[in-house]
């Protein structure tokens, strides 16, 4: 390559580097201060807080790489484009590779990936599973007392049982605020998925399996519940609204539920972590 061409290339390289640095410098504060904290599912629960933080870190790590690649492509297409009318027959520079660039790329991407994997694992363990289902033997769980509630998925609705209140089954999910909640998610037929969006909780419901997830809600409110695993005909209509209320409101509510269902309680199977419905029916 002639020396003027090499100088030209150095100029291009510096411009790309400068543009990348500037773009990253503009984007990073936006990501950290504006986009990140407003990422779903919101910061009203412990799971939500850890997910928002996790997403922010992901965005921060991705931003420089994204800026570099986009700027590089756009700059190259603009700077190295053959203008119509140019002598089209010449070739570009015969560059087959550049070991320093390859090493830098390999090193930075490897570092980023390893960091994200370690950070993600640490975050997962520190946040009691970040609201995700951990199976019957969770490894990241809160110390201290938990409030247990079972979520039973069936085609095509969720029902909820409260083991510390006599195993009463309700059609509404109401939770007390400020307590560590331990969800036990199971299914009676197909695979469903309990997704409490604003809580930041998702746990698949498998027949014969107890899937445990944890969350603590910081303030009262309502939240959407949606089934997140295709379970048949009315999967799209398998949604609900849940409520988080104060301790006293919850006590009132659950007492009311126990009274309402006192008569039919005897026909329910005893509370257990999984159920064996009988017979196995083939529904459409």
């Amino acid at each position, binding site marked *: *390559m002639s020396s003027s061409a090499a100088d030209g290339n150095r100029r291009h390289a510096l411009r790309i580097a400068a543009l990348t640095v500037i773009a990253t410098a503009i984007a990073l504060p936006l990501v950290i201060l504006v986009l990140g904290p407003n990422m*779903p599912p919101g910061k009203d629960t412990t799971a939500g807080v850890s997910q928002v933080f996790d997403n922010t870190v*992901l965005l921060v790590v991705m931003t420089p790489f994204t800026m570099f690649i*986009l700027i590089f492509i756009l700059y190259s297409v603009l700077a190295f484009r053959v203008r119509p009318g140019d002598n089209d027959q010449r*070739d570009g520079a015969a560059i087959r590779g550049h070991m320093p660039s390859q090493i830098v790329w390999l090193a930075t*991407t490897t570092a980023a990936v390893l960091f994200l994997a370690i950070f993600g694992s640490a975050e997962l363990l520190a946040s009691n599973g970040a609201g995700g289902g951990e199976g019957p033997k969770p490894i990241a769980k809160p110390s201290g007392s938990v409030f247990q509630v079972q979520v039973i998925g069936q085609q095509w609705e969720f029902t909820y049982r409260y083991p510390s209140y006599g195993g009463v089954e309700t059609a509404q999910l109401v939770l007390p605020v400020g307590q560590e909640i331990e969800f036990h998610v199971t299914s009676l037929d197909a695979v469903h998925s309990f*997704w409490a969006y604003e809580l930041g909780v998702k746990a698949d419901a498998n027949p014969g399996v107890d899937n445990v997830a944890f969350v603590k809600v910081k303030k009262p409110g309502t939240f959407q519940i949606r089934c997140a695993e295709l379970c048949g005909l009315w999967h799209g209509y398998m949604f609900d609204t849940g409520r988080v209320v104060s301790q006293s409101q919850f006590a009132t509510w659950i007492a009311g539920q126990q009274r309402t269902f006192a008569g039919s309680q005897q026909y329910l199977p005893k509370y257990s972590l999984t159920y064996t419905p009988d017979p196995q029916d083939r529904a459409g």
Partner: protein
Amino acid sequence: MKLRRLIGFNLLTAVILGVIGFYVGWWLGSLFTSESVAYLKESNQHDISLFIGYFTGVLGFLVGLGFANYPVQRMLGKPASLREKETQGKTRYLGLCTDHKVVGLQYLIGIGAFIFIGGLNAMLIRYELITPNQHAWNGNNYLTLVGLHGTMMMGMMTSGILGPFANYLVPIMIGARRMAFPRIEALTFWLLMAAGAILMTAIAFGGFPTGWTGYAPLIDQANMGVDAYIAFFAIVGLSMCLLGLNMVATVITMRAPGMTWGRLPIFVWGQFSTAILMLLAPPVLISTLLMVMLDRTAQTGFFNDQIGGSSYLYENLFWFFGHPEVYILALPGMGILLEILPVFTRKPLWGYKLAVSGLMGIALLSWLVWQHHLFMSGINADLRPFYMLSTELISLPTGFIFICALGTLWAGRIRLTSPMLFCLAWLFNFLIGGLSGVFLSDVPSDVTTHGSFFSMAHFHYTIMGALLFSFFGGIYFWLPKMTGIKLNERLAKAHFWVMFISFNCTFGPLLVIGFLGMPRRAVTYAGYLQGANTWVSVSAFFLGGSMLIFIFNFVWSLVFVREPAGDNPWNSKSIEWQLPSPVPVHNFDRIPTFGPDPYPYGNVGSDAVPSMPAVTPARPTQ
């Protein structure tokens, strides 16, 4: 006279024998009266008849095409030969032809037709999702549309680049006259076509509610329509396995003198790495689908936890196939991208060895990540950090592809032709697809995004944004070579821009919508998402419309205008462009000897020095 020509081993005979075979099989199935299947009879589900019917139907179809002739001849002791009767002319395309170039073009048309149908299904899905509460289709039809769209696309696009492009180009690029197993090559095409027809019959049997992933135990529960899905996927799996076997064998054994592993065009490396996955992953799928078939017919208990089975078994088996499957989709497009970039930057491929390690690294790592589809399923929580690591690691070899593409662009002389535009779009779309994948691979983040439209937008960015764009890039690049006819470049660019803009307007917002709480495959959604969904649906209609531009261009240029393309309209130095367009039946007059550099672009020394040719024809002493 004309009627006589219709009698023989051809497509018409195949269809007739296929239909007859189906009814024979159906009748055979109705003879089963053992105890374990009595339950089926009671519930009026004729699964056994349907499965046997599909099986014998496909057999009849293949016999009608003439695929049974060679095996029967061999059984009688007649020795091996390579070719079926090879007439020139257009009727070769309607039957069993062992010319790899014919098979390539058959694949292009066949896959194109089925993808068009799958795309129509997508339009109907988006039509439903314009509003949350007004329904265009009833619940079962909506789910069937979702399942048909996904299943058809997955089944067809896995062979979407190997079928048309690798079959046509790999023998030429390695200096061979044929693939290793020409009859198997033809078989893979016709198996895929039979499978596509079978999937369409799902509608006649009530559709299926499981989506393309077919989770058990829902799949055990569903109506007869799901048998079409099972049969389709199993046959597609067989077609993929054989296509992979053929491709790997060809690259290993059929290389011409001078074509060492280090000189293979990167396109061939892309198809080779894919073919290894295509050989090994589908057998697991076929096994799994056979287990589902047994669950549905013989009442075995693989996925029924009440008789000792497990829904997790299905998830593990399916995704052990399913994850290599999506890299089967991604890798060929990378091969096309890196093959086309040198031509339109007039530079050698930057970082050839790095690119090869990227492709092979992706192929290897793809086996180790499948449990990231099960992060929320309730798997042993100890496993999740490992799979988070392995999934994030796979972005490293993917990054190699990016840096090699960027290096090839660097200091080039870039011509923005339509194939080049599709390649640049690949880079943009796969960047977004890959980054969204990093979110999904991170377990805390995945809690919200798993099973949502974010996940759906992620794979559409990688499978459609990258793969389908490289598919069209490949068409615009290589169709002049395959047919000898130019496609209209202005229409091609119009197709590109409408497709690129509408694609990003469709799937970009879906990334956000997923994060905002909309689950996949649901026929209704929260009211606050209506505006976004309407925008997405309208963009999707434009995306579908862009395909019409392509089809118009295709028909207009190839049927009406028919302007000759010449031998090397793109001024490429690759070997296929040193042959006439279209490539003659025998590929080369004499097998060539390859030189040391597959990408002899770029100025060596001064601007005035011309590059070495890639190939010298063999001396005529043989």
